[in-house]
C-alpha cells in the first residue's frame, strides 16, 4: 500500500530482513548511481562524464535542455503507460493524471523543438523500466505505487530544473530559455503539490521528509540557510515552515542517481 512497505518488501526480497530500511534505501541508491552511469543515453553520457559529474565546467544550454528532455521523456512515458493500464487510475483522479500527462507530452515536444532551434540535436528517448529492476513491480497495477513514483518524479523534476537555472544564466543567449525552463519548473511544482496531496501528504516538503520514497530525493530539503542567512534567525516562523517555504535544487549527478534505476539504456 504505502511506499515504506514497498521498500521493506525490497529488503525482504533480497533476503536481507536484518538490515534497516535506511540501509535498503542506501543500497538501492548506490545501485541506482551505478545503473545511472552505465545507462545514460548516448549523447547525454558525454555531458555527464565530461561536465556534470566532473563538475569542472558549466554545461551549455543544449546540454541542459537534453538533460531536461531525458527527464521529460521519463515522465511522459510514465503517465502514458499509467493511463494505458486499464483499471489503474480511478475515475475520480483521471482528470488530474490526464492533465499532468498532457503537460509532460507538451514539454517533450517543446524541448525537442527548442534544442533543434538552437542548432542542437535532441537526445533520443531512452528505454525505461519503471519497475526499476523489479523494485516497483506493481507500478502499473497498484495505484499507490504509481502515485509514489509520480510523487518521486515530480519532486525530483522540480529540483532538477531549479538546479540548472543559474547554469542557464551563464549563457548570455539563454534569456528565453530561462523563462521557458522556469515556466516548466513551476508546472512540475503544481503537479508535485497535487500528487503529494493525493497521497495524503502536504503539497510542500517539510524538512527532508521522504514519505517512504528514497531519501536522496529530499536530501538537503531541510536547509534553512538562504542567501548566506540562517532564516531561523530572521523570522518568527518555525524551522519546519522555513524548510517548506524554500525548495532546494539538485545537481545533475544527484538527479541521475535518482532517475538511473528507471533508465535501461
Amino acid at each position, binding site marked *: 500500500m504505502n511506499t515504506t512497505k514497498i521498500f521493506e518488501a525490497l529488503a525482504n526480497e533480497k533476503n536481507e530482513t536484518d538490515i534497516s530500511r535506511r540501509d535498503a534505501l542506501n543500497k538501492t541508491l548506490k545501485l541506482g548511481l551505478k545503473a545511472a552511469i552505465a545507462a545514460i543515453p548516448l549523447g547525454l553520457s558525454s555531458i555527464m562524464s565530461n561536465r556534470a559529474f566532473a563538475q569542472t565546467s558549466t554545461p551549455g544550454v543544449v546540454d541542459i535542455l537534453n538533460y531536461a528532455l531525458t527527464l521529460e521523456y521519463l515522465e511522459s512515458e510514465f503517465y502514458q503507460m499509467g493511463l494505458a493500464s486499464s483499471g489503474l487510475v480511478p475515475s*475520480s*483522479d483521471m*482528470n*488530474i493524471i*490526464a*492533465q*499532468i500527462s*498532457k*503537460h509532460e*507530452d*507538451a*514539454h517533450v515536444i*517543446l524541448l525537442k523543438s527548442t534544442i533543434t532551434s538552437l542548432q542542437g540535436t535532441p537526445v533520443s528517448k531512452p528505454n525505461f523500466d519503471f519497475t526499476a529492476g523489479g523494485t516497483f513491480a506493481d507500478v502499473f497495477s497498484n495505484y499507490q505505487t504509481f502515485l509514489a513514483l509520480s510523487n518521486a518524479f515530480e519532486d525530483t523534476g*522540480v529540483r532538477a530544473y*531549479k538546479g540548472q*537555472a*543559474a*547554469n542557464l*544564466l551563464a549563457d548570455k543567449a539563454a*534569456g*528565453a530559455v*530561462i*523563462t*521557458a525552463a*522556469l*515556466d516548466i*519548473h*513551476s*508546472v*512540475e*511544482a*503544481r*503537479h*508535485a*503539490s*497535487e500528487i503529494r*496531496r493525493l497521497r495524503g501528504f*502536504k*503539497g*510542500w516538503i517539510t524538512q527532508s521528509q521522504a514519505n517512504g520514497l528514497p531519501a536522496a530525493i529530499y536530501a538537503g530539503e531541510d*536547509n534553512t*540557510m*538562504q*542567501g*548566506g*542567512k*540562517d*532564516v531561523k534567525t*530572521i*523570522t*518568527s*516562523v518555525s524551522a519546519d*515552515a*522555513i524548510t*517548506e*517555504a*524554500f*525548495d*532546494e*535544487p539538485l545537481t545533475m549527478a544527484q538527479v541521475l542517481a535518482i532517475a538511473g534505476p528507471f533508465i535501461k539504456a
Partner: protein
Amino acid sequence: MKETNDEGAVQKILTTQLNRKTFLKYSAIAGSTMAIGLEACHKDDNPSMSNGTVDVGSGDTGILNFAYALEQLEAAFYIQVNASMYSGATNEEKQILADIMNHEIAHRDFFKAALGSSAIMQLQVDFSKIDFTSRASVLATAKALEDTGVSAYNGAGQYITNGDYLTLAGKIVSVEARHAAAIRDLLNPKSASFAGDDVVDPTTGLDFSRTPNAGNPSIVATANTFLKTKISATKLP
C-alpha cells in the same frame, strides 16, 4: 553552511557595490516627511519614493524589491485570513492556509533581511475589497495572489543577472506554485484546475510568466488594488 559573517550573501554583494559611496536620501511626501536610508553607488538600482508611490528600483535590487513587495502583500493577506477564519473551514483548509501564511512570512522576512538597507519600506495594505468572512472571496483572492506570484517570478527570472539570486527566486517560486495548486484544488477538487488550462498553456505545457508591467492589468496594477502604499516598477520591464 555556517555563516561566519553576519552579512548574508545578498547583502554582502549589495554593500560591496555600494561601499564606494554612501548617501541618505530624503523625500518629502504630502504633508509628512519620510526619511528613507539608502546606501547606494548605482543609486538608480535602489528604490525611491515620489507622490506616495514606492518605486522598487532597477536591476537585481529592483527585482528583489518587487518580489519583496509581493511577499509583503501575500503575508499580510494570509495573516488576516488566519486572524478571522471564515466559518465552516475544514481542518485541511485551516492547515493549508496556516502553512501558506508561515511560508509567506518566511519569504517576506528573508527579503527584508537580504535587502538590508536597500529594502523598500513596509507597505500598507488595503483589503477592503476582500470579504474575509466568505470562503469564496478568500480562496479566490488566494488563487489570484499565488498565480500572480508564480507568473511574476517566472517573468522576472531572465532579468536577474546574479545566479545566486536566480536560484533563490527558483527556490521560492516552486513553493508559490505548490500553493497555487493546493488553493485551486480546494476551489475545484479533483479537477484539472490545479494546473488548469487557464494558467498552463495546454499546447506548450508552460506556466504563465509576466514581467512587472506587462499585461492589462499588469502585476503592478493588480498588486496596487490591494495596497494603500502604491508601488511602481518604472525601471523594470
